[in-house]
């Protein structure tokens, strides 16, 4: 099961990277196709040990629908973050007030925490620095409004946590 899933994913990646199908003439490059099957088979034989432990989660449609909902939310915060940073950079006095705060997350699985940290890094004024085993994340904040763990958690983490819980947990 895990091997088959890994084979499908690596073959899809190969397909996207080389793109053997030509749109205008409708012709297929069978040589590249066969090489892709060979390479994906090799990958799925050799590297199955570093693949995810629960591949059945990849086939639940509800997660993908939540992911589609997550994209516009993420895009909105991302553009907001960029305008905020541009304002701080171009302002002649540079109104920054930086510091490292500590927040707590409820998420458990590794992929969820990775996605949360990446989202935090790309959204307004925050950058994840390190995380501990018991669910704390250290965050560099360009404009610290509260040093308390609970308040900082509410302000930074909660808005993504709810959606990411449904996608990855």
């Amino acid at each position, binding site marked *: 099961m895990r091997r088959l899933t890994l084979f499908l994913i690596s073959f899809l990646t190969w397909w996207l*990277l080389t793109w053997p199908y030509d*749109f205008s003439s409708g012709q297929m490059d069978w040589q590249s196709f066969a090489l892709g099957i060979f390479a994906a088979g090799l990958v799925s034989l050799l590297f199955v040990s570093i693949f995810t432990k629960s591949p059945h989660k990849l086939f639940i449609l509800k997660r993908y629908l939540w992911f589609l909902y997550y994209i516009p939310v993420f895009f909105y915060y991302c553009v907001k973050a960029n305008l905020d*940073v541009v304002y701080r*950079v171009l302002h002649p006095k540079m109104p920054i007030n930086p*510091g490292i705060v500590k927040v707590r997350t409820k998420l458990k699985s590794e992929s969820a925490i990775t996605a949360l940290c990446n989202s935090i890094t790309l959204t307004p004024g925050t950058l994840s620095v*390190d995380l501990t085993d018991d669910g704390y994340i250290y965050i560099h904040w360009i404009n*610290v409004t509260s040093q308390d763990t609970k308040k900082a958690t509410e302000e930074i983490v909660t808005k993504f946590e709810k959606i990411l819980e449904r996608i990855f947990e």
Partner: protein
Amino acid sequence: MSSLIGLILMGIGLLFDLFGCIGLVRLPDVYNRLQAATKCVTLGTCFLLSGVMVSEGVSALSVKALVCMIFILIISPTAAHAIARGAHLSGVKLWEGSVCDKYAEDREGKK
């Protein structure tokens, strides 16, 4: 029409790139530079690639641009995270105007 939209998207992306690099030069310490540079340059390059996609239409080039966009959205925050952790562990201090540093406090406590 689609090439005009593509050019506008590319222009927005290039402006974000430029502001990110100005932030890289102007801001006072490593962590603030990481903030500005990572956010602005990542989103700027994504806008640039989506502009290329829109003006090219459906072809092998635009599929590759989409793949490149996904790669950049994954790798850029991860690299920023790694550099921030490495910088803090190698002993780079925060800017003197910083408010608090919980990470250094907790590391001192463990020793």
